[in-house]
Each structure stands twice: as structure tokens, then as C-alpha cells.
């Protein structure tokens, strides 16, 4: 009986994720900061798992970063989002997958607002028609791209060449996960595990052999804060909040970090570099940092893709110590090359944090 009760409660923290047929919308931030991640996402779903993922060149930003910088009004983002939904409707899809947590949070907020205020939905329909001549349906299912990877995590595990296991000790790697505030803090029922039991990345890590670190500041913001990072004078906010997370996770000696949001991995990666360069403090072993990954990168790693095809060379915190722990081969000579071995020079080495 007790187990049934628990299962019942856990059901409330689940969401329905379709198995196939997605209209895919890219993330401005992910494309700019981790350019290979969306390439890998599509490759895994289309080539490895034969899923239908439709994309169109005609969608734009959702306006989310402008909205949360308060320069774009809510009526405007509602209508931009309505236009994205119109593109989905015109393409004949009902399942919408977006690649950004800010977008996902905003889509959830706008759909919820339309539910509570049907007159705003009508107004949005009119505005969209007036501005573009388009009409739209609200998606039947809204998924973040990580929800889709979560859904197929066991299929990926079956095809995996590597596991998130330390090959020297045989033990699972200790993994910190960060789902990003806008995935489920506003609408816990829209994310797997809600805000309380973040499970979208945990499910992947467990399926792929790793072990999650449950540290005190696990749910704390990475510190993006929109205007708090975007405006130089405010950037200490971002650094201070990342610092708080690292101080909290440090005693647990994590091997790696996996992230959901396209911005969080940038902050968790780069602020480690800044803390090392300014304070001389490194959070990993032997003067190294703790490498930070997108979920697409981790999926690609376990599937055995070349680390430099995954874009791991754009990280500031070196990934090689982690690749060595798992036993993933890599060629240091090709790390900084372009197509056909084109020499792109090498980045300067940081002073304090170990770079491979």
C-alpha cells in the first residue's frame, strides 16, 4: 500500500511527453553559446532514434530575454509566441519542443495567462492577424527539448558506448544537476519532478550510470538575473550567486555538472574561471575546475561522439580530466582545428585554473 501511495504522489510530478512528431524551435542563447548542442540534439533524435523533428527557418526569438529585461511588453511577447504557434499549426504539428528554458517558462506563462484570461487570447489572435495575417492553435503538448531527451533516455542508454562511471574506481560519477529557474519554479506541474524533486536531468544521469549529488543549494539560481548579468555594472550579482552554489557543492566533490538551460552552463563555467583568476580558488581536484555540460553534450558523450564534434572545445573549464575518468578517447591535436584540419590558433591559457 505504501508503495502505491508513493507512486500516486510521484505521478503528480510527471508530465506527458509525446514520443515523436515535434515542431522544434531553437534557442538564441544555446545557438550562440553552445553552438553544437542543437546539432547533436537533432542528430540523436533523427539519426539514432528515427524521430520526426520538424524545423523552419521562419521562427524568431520568443522575445523572452527582452521581456525579462523589461524592454518588451507582455502583449508583444504573447503575439510573437502566437506567431511561433502559427508556424507550428501551418506545418501540421501539435507537439512543440523548444530548446530554451527562458522560452519554456514564457510559453508556460503565456498559455496559463490565456487560460485565466480568455479575452487576452482573443486579443492576441486579433493582434497576430492584424500584424501577420496568421492564425494559430495552442500546442497540445509543450516540451522542453530536455523533456524529449528524458523520454528517450533509456533508448540512448541502450545505444551508449560509455557510462557515467569512473573507469579507475568502477564507481558512478558524482553529478551536480541544474534545471534552471524557469523550467519549473513558476509552474511546477510543467516540469518533470516539479521544482521540489528536479528529475529531468536526474533521470538522464541515472539512466546513463551516474549518481546525483543532492547538495544544499541545488535549487538556487545560477545568478543570470537577466539585467543583472546583461548590464556590466550589475554582473557581481551573477558571480555572487554562482559562487554560493559552488561553495555549497564543493564538499561533495562532484565530477561534473549537467545543465538544462542554455545560459546556466555558461555562467557555471565562466564564473569558475573568474573565481580562479581573481581568488586563486578552483573547485575541482588538482587545480582543475568542475566541467559543466549541456544535456545534449552529455548524451553525445555517452553515445561515443567525438568530443570536439560536441563543441566541448568552447568550454573554458577543461573537459579532458572528465573524459579521462570515463575513458572517452580524444585527440588533443584536433581540439582547436576548423574543418579539414584548418589551424585556428590556440586560445591563451588562463593563469590559475588548469587548462588541458
Amino acid at each position: 500500500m505504501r508503495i502505491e501511495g508513493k507512486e500516486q504522489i510521484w505521478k503528480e510530478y510527471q508530465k506527458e511527453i509525446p514520443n515523436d512528431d515535434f515542431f522544434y524551435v531553437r534557442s538564441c542563447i544555446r545557438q550562440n553559446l553552445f553552438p553544437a548542442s542543437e546539432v547533436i540534439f537533432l542528430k540523436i533524435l533523427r539519426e539514432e532514434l528515427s524521430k520526426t523533428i520538424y524545423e523552419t527557418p521562419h521562427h524568431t526569438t520568443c522575445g523572452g530575454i527582452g521581456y525579462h529585461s523589461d524592454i518588451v511588453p507582455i502583449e508583444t511577447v504573447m503575439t510573437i509566441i502566437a506567431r511561433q504557434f502559427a508556424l507550428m499549426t501551418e506545418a501540421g504539428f501539435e507537439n512543440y519542443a523548444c530548446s530554451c528554458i527562458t522560452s519554456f517558462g514564457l510559453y508556460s506563462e503565456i498559455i496559463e495567462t490565456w487560460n485565466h484570461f480568455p479575452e487576452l487570447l482573443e486579443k492576441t489572435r486579433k493582434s497576430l492577424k492584424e500584424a501577420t495575417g496568421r492564425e494559430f492553435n495552442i500546442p497540445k503538448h509543450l516540451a522542453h527539448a530536455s523533456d524529449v531527451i528524458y523520454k528517450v533516455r533509456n533508448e540512448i542508454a541502450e545505444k551508449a558506448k560509455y557510462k557515467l562511471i569512473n573507469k579507475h574506481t568502477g564507481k558512478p560519477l558524482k553529478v551536480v544537476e541544474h534545471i534552471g529557474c524557469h523550467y519549473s519554479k513558476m509552474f511546477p506541474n510543467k516540469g518533470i519532478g516539479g521544482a521540489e524533486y528536479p528529475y529531468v536531468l536526474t533521470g538522464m544521469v541515472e539512466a546513463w550510470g551516474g549518481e546525483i549529488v543532492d547538495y544544499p543549494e541545488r535549487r538556487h539560481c545560477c545568478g543570470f538575473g537577466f539585467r543583472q548579468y546583461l548590464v556590466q555594472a550589475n554582473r557581481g550579482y551573477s558571480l555572487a550567486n554562482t559562487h554560493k552554489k559552488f561553495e555549497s557543492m564543493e564538499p561533495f566533490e562532484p565530477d561534473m555538472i549537467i545543465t538544462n538551460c542554455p545560459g546556466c552552463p555558461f555562467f557555471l563555467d565562466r564564473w569558475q574561471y573568474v573565481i580562479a583568476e581573481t581568488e586563486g580558488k578552483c573547485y575541482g581536484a588538482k587545480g582543475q575546475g568542475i566541467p559543466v555540460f549541456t544535456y545534449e553534450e552529455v548524451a553525445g558523450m555517452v553515445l561515443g561522439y567525438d568530443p570536439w564534434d560536441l563543441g566541448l572545445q568552447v568550454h573554458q573549464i577543461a573537459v579532458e580530466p572528465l573524459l579521462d575518468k570515463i575513458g572517452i578517447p580524444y585527440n588533443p591535436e584536433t581540439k582547436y582545428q576548423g574543418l579539414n584540419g584548418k589551424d585556428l590558433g590556440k586560445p591563451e591559457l588562463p593563469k590559475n585554473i588548469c587548462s588541458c
Partner: protein
Amino acid sequence: MKTLYEQLAKDVRFQEGMNACINCGTCTAICPAAEFYDYDPRRVVDLVQSKNEVEIEKLLREDTIWLCGECMSCVTRCPRKNAPGLIIMAMRSLSQDLGYFTDSEKGRQQLALKRTIGKMILDTGYCLYRRWVTPEAHPEGGPIWKWTFDNVDALYERLGCNLDGEGNGVLRKIPQEDLDELKRIFEVTGGMDRYEKIENYSAKKAEEMGLSMDEYITQSVLGKQ
């Protein structure tokens, strides 16, 4: 003439986010902004629910409302289902509508945001455009950011992207017809109006302060030099 409270109450985010606050302080306890700044979302919500016009006007003119990071951590935790983050968003909108935002140093940063993020959205269809995010403005990006910036074409090609290219793919060029639709949406829904208000109120303030627009932006973005 509507009171400030009545104007706030028209905002759908205010309607969603403002219920009776019991002043428990839970929002402040978990707030990343309160961690860093002298900022207290509990106080903001309590002042607003008091409907004290003088206090609300002060808030709309002060730095305080610009200190929130809009992470919405408070929403998960509030026992009364308030959303201090949404209340702040409604206040920021009103502060910009009325021009009060230029009275505070943090509020004046809106012009820089409009001229960077706002410009990228309309000109490129992306809220961030790789070629315009320079290593000089982002020293925290480290040597890797500089290397990727310097080699952006060759590197993104090697990673399978389609930087500024036709058709689908990572960082494709968004077709002009779509940018035109986006701009039309801004015109029809008040987005352009917001941009103009930010520009006009900022220009007025810069004049009052005896600053050129460049000096005004530099001061707000880097702090007083």
C-alpha cells in the same frame, strides 16, 4: 486619473501575482537578489498591498524595483501564492510608461538594454547575435570567448552550424520577411511604443543631467566614472 495602485492592478501579472501577503519573509529568505543587494521582496509586496501612493511612487522611482533577477524562486515558495517577481515586472512596466525609471541609476540602465538586446531582436531576429557580443564587453568569457569570437566563421562551420546562412540550422540568417512580421508585431502590440518611451524619457533625463547620450549610457552601464 487612476491611482498608481489602480494602474498596477490593470497589469495581468499583478492580478496573477498579488494576493494578501502575510509578511512571512519566505520570499526574501530564498531570493538571490536579496542575497546580493540590500533588497527585500517582502517589503516591496507589503508596501504595494498597503496602497500607499507615496510609497508606491517612491518605489517606481527608486533603484529597488530594478534589483530583482526575475528568477521566480519566490513564486515556488510563497505560502500565499503571491509572485513578488511578477509584481516587480508590473512595476517596471509602469515605471517605464510614466518615465519614472530615469530617476534611478539602475532604472537608467533600460536604455542600454533597449539599444543592445532590443536592437538585436529587431535587427537579427535573435535576442543575442554572436558577432556583436565582444570579448571586451565580456571579459568573464575568458580566453575561450576571445578565441571563439576571433574564429567564429571557421569554428561554427566546423561544428555544423549555418551562421548567417540561408535555410535551417544553428544561427541561420532569419529571412527579411520574418523580421518584417516581427516588427509589425512590435508596432501593433505596443513594443515599439515601449522602445520609443525608453529613448525619449532617457534623452530628456540626459539633457537634465547635462550628459551626452553616450555619457549617459556609459554611466548607467559601468557606474559613475
